[in-house]
């Protein structure tokens, strides 16, 4: 299908006109199974090496090789794949059938569902995976003797799980990948397992994700209940047929799936694990917690978009959660001092934008932003990693300054600047366009709440620009000054050691990728060709589903009926406002953090002095105390309940009831024991008592006319 760029900017038309084509079984694509197998193999190999305590960089190179091959395979698939989606059966996994109809069977085979969305996602997942693995071969070298192999085992497991998640042909495989990436991130966040903070962070990440996974699992159950299948190829064909089950079940599906997505992508109430996840090594933060894994939520919603379109209210919820999370995280990010934490909050915020886009109906915008974000955020993290690597783990922007003037860090600094500009959505950067896609859909909407979300997003863009450049101006610009972090090994004078080729190479490639990520937009803008990303979206599940067109149409229509905003089209308005906000934020940062750094502190002091809002800076630095609140509301009560139950179980149920019953015989015995103390009379008592009872019985029967 070909759309003119302008109409292509309107998701509504896209939704209304598109449809999920039926999938064709294509066994000839079985070689794509290697994309799944290679990471698994390298994972096993690395695990074995870890167990056999293999010294040397072998595991690293093995991983890089397998991931690279993966990437090549995906490229091959990209070229050779047909128009419509294909299903590649690989093997049996779980299959039941106990009756004739669909509802009498539960089929979950090891199979791939390949459409353009899959390819699109796999492209940057495997590509970035390879590059970051390459980067890590050097970054992790200083513990070649300790956990090198373990690290790469984790990376390989992650890639395997992510591949299963994206390419899997049914929701159960997606669930497998979903939990698999959770495991990988658990392993990698807890990589420095002697640090209690790292262990705690890993635990937190897995548990919070498990909450989301719970929603996802229940969503899968419900999907099966309603539609009798969990295989995409059938599901999206029959989605929208009147469900065989009650209305509430069907209405619940998208909300439960949403819960899973929020957990994995750190949205809404479940975002708390991502900042702590920065305890992991920086390549992990770049790969898993910035570029790929956290976008799994976006992928889930894009993949199951037809189910969401059946419940427009669910999409509204998604939009709200996304927009608010974007704003919330940005406010926290403005007050952090740890570079990686700032980038972490910016990740949450950007993911919020993506969900906002999904909620507003422009999956294209969301995926486009995912795409660009993957690159520039990876670039930012890798540069941060380079700094961390060079300055012995120092990331506090109060203790680093003017790095761009230090030889060996210039290139890093400029790429950091690139990433910062992109993150700040500087005009005509890639992120500028992708973000524009999303915000214009909101600003140009008829619905007041969507408009509000749009403007909130624009304002958040300003905040983003501010905190991004706050970091850059503080750390990379200004007078040269640094203190090494706590990981300093050498005594005496500290010399920052600059990154070598592998790190520089991957940074460079990813930076260039970040630049190129904007190319589709330029194309669409100036050459008036179809946006490549949109072309990738088209014909995939991300843009609608069979039989949902009419529900979708009105939602999309009210989502964006590109009417006039501020006298120009929604797009133009958004672009202008976006650039104004962005540049404004940058200028404020420039003044406060480069030109007169003292002003920032005096401003802070001024705010703290003012009575009503004096608490704000401290609270923002403490992440609005969300963790503490969660602790008090959820963990502590459960923990107390656990202790109470343990007490009940041990002392009341076991020691009380059970042992009480157990000791009752001996109690009865204790009653009669004195009668057998050997004293004549006690025996006489029993004897006489017995005689008495017998007599009584005789009398009784006799009087009742017995005998």
């Amino acid at each position, binding site marked *: 299908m070909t759309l003119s760029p302008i109409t292509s900017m309107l998701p509504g038309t896209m939704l209304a006109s598109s449809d999920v084509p039926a999938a064709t079984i294509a066994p000839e694509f079985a070689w794509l199974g290697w994309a799944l197998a290679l990471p698994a193999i390298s994972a096993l190999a690395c695990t074995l090496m870890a167990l056999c305590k293999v010294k040397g960089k072998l595991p690293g190179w093995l991983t890089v090789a397998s991931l690279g091959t993966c990437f090549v395979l995906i490229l091959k698939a990209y070229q050779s794949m047909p128009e419509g989606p294909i299903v590649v059966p690989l093997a049996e996994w779980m299959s039941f059938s106990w009756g004739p109809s669909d509802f009498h069977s539960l089929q979950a085979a090891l199979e791939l569902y390949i459409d353009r969305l899959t390819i699109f996602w796999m492209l940057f997942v495997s590509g970035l995976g390879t590059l970051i693995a390459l980067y890590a071969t050097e970054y992790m070298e200083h513990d070649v003797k300790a956990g090198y192999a373990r690290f790469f085992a984790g990376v390989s497991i992650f890639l395997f799980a992510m591949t299963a998640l994206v390419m899997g042909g049914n929701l159960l495989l997606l669930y497998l990948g979903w939990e698999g990436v959770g495991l990988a991130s658990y392993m990698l966040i807890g990589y420095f397992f002697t640090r209690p903070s790292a262990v705690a962070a890993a635990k937190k990440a897995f548990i919070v994700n498990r909450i989301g996974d719970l929603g996802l699992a229940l969503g899968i159950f419900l999907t099966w209940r309603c539609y009798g299948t969990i295989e995409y190829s059938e599901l999206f064909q029959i989605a929208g047929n009147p469900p065989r089950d009650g209305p509430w079940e069907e209405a619940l599906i998208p909300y439960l799936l949403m819960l899973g997505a929020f957990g994995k992508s750190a949205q809404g109430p479940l975002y708390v694990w991502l900042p702590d996840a920065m305890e992991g090594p920086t390549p992990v933060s770049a790969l898993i917690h910035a570029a790929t894994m956290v976008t799994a939520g976006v992928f889930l919603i894009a993949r199951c978009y037809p189910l969401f379109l059946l419940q427009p209210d669910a999409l509204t919820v998604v939009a709200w959660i996304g927009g608010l999370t974007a704003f919330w995280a940005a406010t926290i990010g403005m007050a952090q001092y740890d570079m990686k934490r700032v980038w972490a909050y910016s990740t949450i915020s950007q993911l919020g934008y993506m969900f906002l886009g999904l909620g507003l109906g422009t999956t294209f915008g969301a995926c486009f932003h995912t795409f660009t974000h993957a690159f520039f955020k990876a670039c930012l993290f890798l540069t941060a990693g380079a700094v961390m690597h060079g300055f012995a783990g120092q990331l506090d922007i109060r203790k680093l300054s003017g790095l761009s003037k230090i030889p060996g860090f210039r290139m890093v600094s400029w790429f950091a600047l690139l990433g910062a500009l992109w993150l700040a959505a500087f005009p005509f950067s890639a992120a500028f366009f992708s973000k524009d896609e999303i915000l214009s859909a909101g600003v140009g909407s008829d619905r007041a709440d969507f408009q509000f979300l749009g403007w909130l997003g624009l304002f958040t863009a300003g905040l983003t620009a501010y905190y991004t450049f706050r970091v850059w101006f503080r750390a990379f610009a200004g007078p040269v000054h640094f203190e090494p972090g706590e990981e300093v090994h050498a005594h005496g004078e500290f010399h920052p050691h600059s990154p070598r080729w592998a790190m520089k190479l991957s940074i460079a490639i990813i930076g260039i990728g970040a630049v190129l990520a904007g190319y589709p937009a330029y194309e669409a803008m100036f050459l008036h060709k179809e946006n490549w990303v949109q072309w990738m979206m088209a014909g995939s599940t991300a843009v609608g589903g069979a039989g949902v067109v009419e529900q979708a149409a009105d939602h999309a229509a009210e989502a964006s009926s590109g009417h006039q905003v501020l006298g120009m089209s929604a797009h133009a308005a958004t672009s202008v406002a976006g650039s104004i906000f962005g540049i404004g934020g940058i200028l404020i940062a420039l003044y406060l953090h480069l030109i007169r750094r003292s002003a920032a502190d005096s401003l802070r002091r001024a705010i703290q002095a003012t009575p009503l809002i004096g608490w704000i800076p401290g609270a923002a630095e403490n992440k609005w105390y969300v963790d503490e609140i969660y602790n008090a509301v959820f963990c502590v009560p459960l923990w107390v309940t656990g202790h109470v139950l343990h007490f009940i179980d041990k002392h009341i149920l076991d020691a009380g009831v059970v042992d009480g019953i157990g000791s009752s015989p001996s109690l009865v015995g204790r009653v009669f024991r004195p009668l057998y103390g050997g004293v004549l*009379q006690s025996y006489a*008592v029993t004897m006489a008592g017995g005689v008495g009872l017998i*007599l*009584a019985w*005789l*009398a*009784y029967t*006799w009087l*009742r006319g017995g005998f």
Partner: protein
Amino acid sequence: MVKGSGLRYRTYAPILPPPRCPRTGGTVLVTPPMVPIELLAGGALGAAGLLLILLRGGHTVHRTGGAIAALGGLAILAGGAGLGAPTAGESGFSFPLLVALLAGVMSAAGAVRVISSPRPVLAAIFFVLVVVAGCMLYLTLGAEFLAFALVIVYAGAILITYMFVLMLAQQASGDSKSGAAEYDRNARDPIAAVFVGLVLFLSIATIMWKAVDSFDPATTGQIQRARAWIALGELPKGLREAVESVEPGATPEAGTLHVSAGEVSLQVTKADGSRGSVTLPESSLPHNTQTVGVALVKQFPVSLELAGVILLMAMLGAVVLARRQIEIGDAQKAELHARSHGGAA
């Protein structure tokens, strides 16, 4: 959602057993045995009193309260038994009954004191009271011989033995000085004891009480008289005297006593040698001692012998037991020896 409501209702209701379940626990209702209310009340009251007395030996308040309760229970029992006559005709009252009531109360109270008095000697003395009261009861029941035998044997023989033993024991261990011994003052678990006693009393007394219902005075009286007459037939001397009192000089012919409902007649040969039958008057009915004697020697001679043997054995046994235990310390031996010598000198 009505459908939903039905659904959820279903998930909970069947936890209960299905309606067709057999009714369990519906055991047959037991009608309590009809113990006469007098027995129940009196027994319970008396038992309570006895318990009070026994529980804290030596404590006055308890003893008095207990004694009152026990007497109350006793009164209920005796009154219920003696006055609440089975066939409450005009008035079931008579002089022997009055005596019997007094005697009964006396004996029961005495018994209570026997088991409750902290000093064995008192106990023994109260036992004498019981025996005497029992003797009175026997008299009212028309067992004169036994009545006196009882007094003689018990009060005369057995109790004296007890006294001797008591004196031996008590004086040997210096209990008499310091009031009663500890083991005399407080009873060992009186609750069990009184409970057992109560159970026994209720069951026995109930059976006996009911047994009296089948008492038919008229026929019993006739039977008694008939037996007495027959016993007279066994007594040649008494028979001769009886005949003499009616027909002087006549001698009864053996085995011709004929007892009929109306009169008692027997063949006699008169003084003139002519044979004829004589009707005996009520006055010549043999009295209790005679009849008992007859029963003993005629009906139960073997048992009589056995009793004798038992007594003999007992005597031998007592002697053996006692002898074995007489050991004389060396000092006493020497003393005896010296005395004998002194006697010699």
